[in-house]
């Protein structure tokens, strides 16, 4: 039995979550639901206030995801990491020697992805674990 790491932030990654749960069920794996909650934007004053607010949001969203997994009969674990999404996912997956990482394309338009680089984009380049990308 191995673990499948899924990046989940509630917005457009529901398809990724469902895919991960489905695979986990077939393979007899458990899912690790990961939310990277580093605040974006410049560091500096009152940064932590934003980070804490994001963390609360993350707790709420991931609890729902864990519920979805439970309903499907799959073991799950929620991990909140105070890092940006791509780093959070690749570090955790490497650490746990996970079977794979499942992420959504986040509904980011191609243009935005090219100019700014999306989490998914970055993940594909830095992760040592196989990455499965799921379109919403």
């Amino acid at each position, binding site marked *: 039995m191995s673990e499948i790491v899924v990046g989940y*932030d*509630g*917005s*457009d990654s529901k398809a990724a979550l469902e895919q991960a749960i489905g695979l986990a069920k077939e393979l*007899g794996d458990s899912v690790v639901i990961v939310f990277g*909650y*580093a*605040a*974006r*934007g*410049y*560091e*500096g*004053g*009152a*940064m*932590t*206030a*934003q*980070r*804490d*607010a*994001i*963390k*609360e*949001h993350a*707790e709420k*969203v*991931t*609890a729902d995801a*864990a*519920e979805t*997994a*439970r309903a*499907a*009969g*799959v*073991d*799950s*674990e*929620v*991990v*909140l*990491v*105070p*890092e*940006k999404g791509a*780093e959070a996912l690749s*570090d*955790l997956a490497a650490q746990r020697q996970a079977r794979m990482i499942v992420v959504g394309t986040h509904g980011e338009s191609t243009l935005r992805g090219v100019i*700014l680089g999306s989490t998914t984009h970055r993940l594909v380049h830095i992760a040592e674990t196989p990455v499965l990308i799921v379109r919403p």
Partner: protein
Amino acid sequence: MESAAVPAETLPTGAGAGEKGLKSNAIGYASNLVIGVASTAPGYSLAATLGFVVAVGGIGFHAPIIMILSFIPMLLIASAYNYLNRADPDAGTSFAWVTRAMGPRLGWLTGWAIVAADVVVMAALAYIAGTYSFLLFDWQSAADSLLAVSIAAGIWIVVMTAICTIGIELSARTQVFLLGAEILTLALFAAVALYKVYFGTQPGAPLNSVYIHADWFNPFTLHGGSTALVEGILLGVFIYWGWDSGVCVNEESENSATGPGKAAIMSTILLVLIYVVVTVAAQSYAGVDFLRSNKNDVLSALGGSVFGSPLDKLLIIAVLTSASASTQTTILPTARTTLSMARWGAMPKALGSIHPRYLTPHVSTILMGAVSLIWTLIIINVSQNVLSDSITGLGFQIAFYYGLTGFACAFYYRRELTRSFKNFFMAGVVPFLGGAMLTYIFVKAFIDNKPVDSAYSGGFLGVGAAVAIGVGLLLFGVVLLVIANIAYPKFFKRKLETAPPGFLERPPGEPATTTVTPE
């Protein structure tokens, strides 16, 4: 199969987790240096204030010493930031600290002063950004048109607000590049200007050049005496504004055991150097009369003459990138301050919400953008001179909340001061002195700027416009405070806190307070 949902944390909650996150992002030395300098936006600060400092009656050629002296209160307050951040890294900086140390009423007013100062500065920022955008394309008639500049300034604020809401951020490398280019351009400007003064082919250079004189650095030969000095420092405080929070809060507590980080020291030296060298070069090249008469856009006015076309565009680009960095370091911290105030239960709850997709404090950010937009359009269109006065007015707000932060530090640690000389000096004397200096500047400048005829734009409500904007907005804050008092009774029942005994003797890293969670 047995199913279980186990919410687990890989890392401890609270500030410890945050620290870990910062560390693993490994903000390097260069990046720290960049953020320290970028949050003060030297190019933009010079463009916005150099002319006004020179124009203060009695300062003239003494602007370089004003640039140096203005830094002293900031340096003193930085120590307060450093110590208070150690006790409570978790919230709206000065708002949280003053609330804890001196009570919710002063704390609330501090938060308001931060917001007010940030809104007021947005007008100046957007005006410069609007004007310089047109100058970049040599579109002088648009730069002179109030309507065109208003539109450009409005677009600027909307775009910047959108960027902050969506949470677009430049990579550290891009930031290092942009700031590097900005500093290089300013250095090049100073070097070319001084070269032309001393070795130029045209004797006396194109303008009224003067050789550098030691008297420029002598505060005792100021013609205007203490009035001019205080007026200059009030403007000077503005140019260094942002340095403290950017540098001190970024300092990772693990390193603070070995004293202030190298990046902090370097960025400080770099900043003072930039301001002094560019000021000296500008007044040596063009003389003070030229700077005075072009005070609204000194750098673009000088650029054409010093660099000639098309190199003068470099200077304009430097000011524009600087202004964009500055807008972001204005909108974001303000939004986070109101976010923090909302989470403390001192402002409407909606301001504390986070966008589910962008993970930014979108309600706070958009509100900040909207208020700034309205303020900017009014201020720009009332008259150009009101804009000038608002920079002086801004000094009052900064002096108010920085001053209170200094006092809050000494007060919060008052029982720790006798434990060691270092505590006594760095957590007590230095912050208190900073607070006292800023109080003096506030009071003295208030007396000097109160008469209607002291302002560029004349009077407003029977006082000088700078006082009306600066102190008037603070008084408006008192009105809002009364309303907040009724709306948020729980927050205003908070008790004063002091540092836990022996806190400063503990190893750094562990905060003294627990995170505030919303009800």
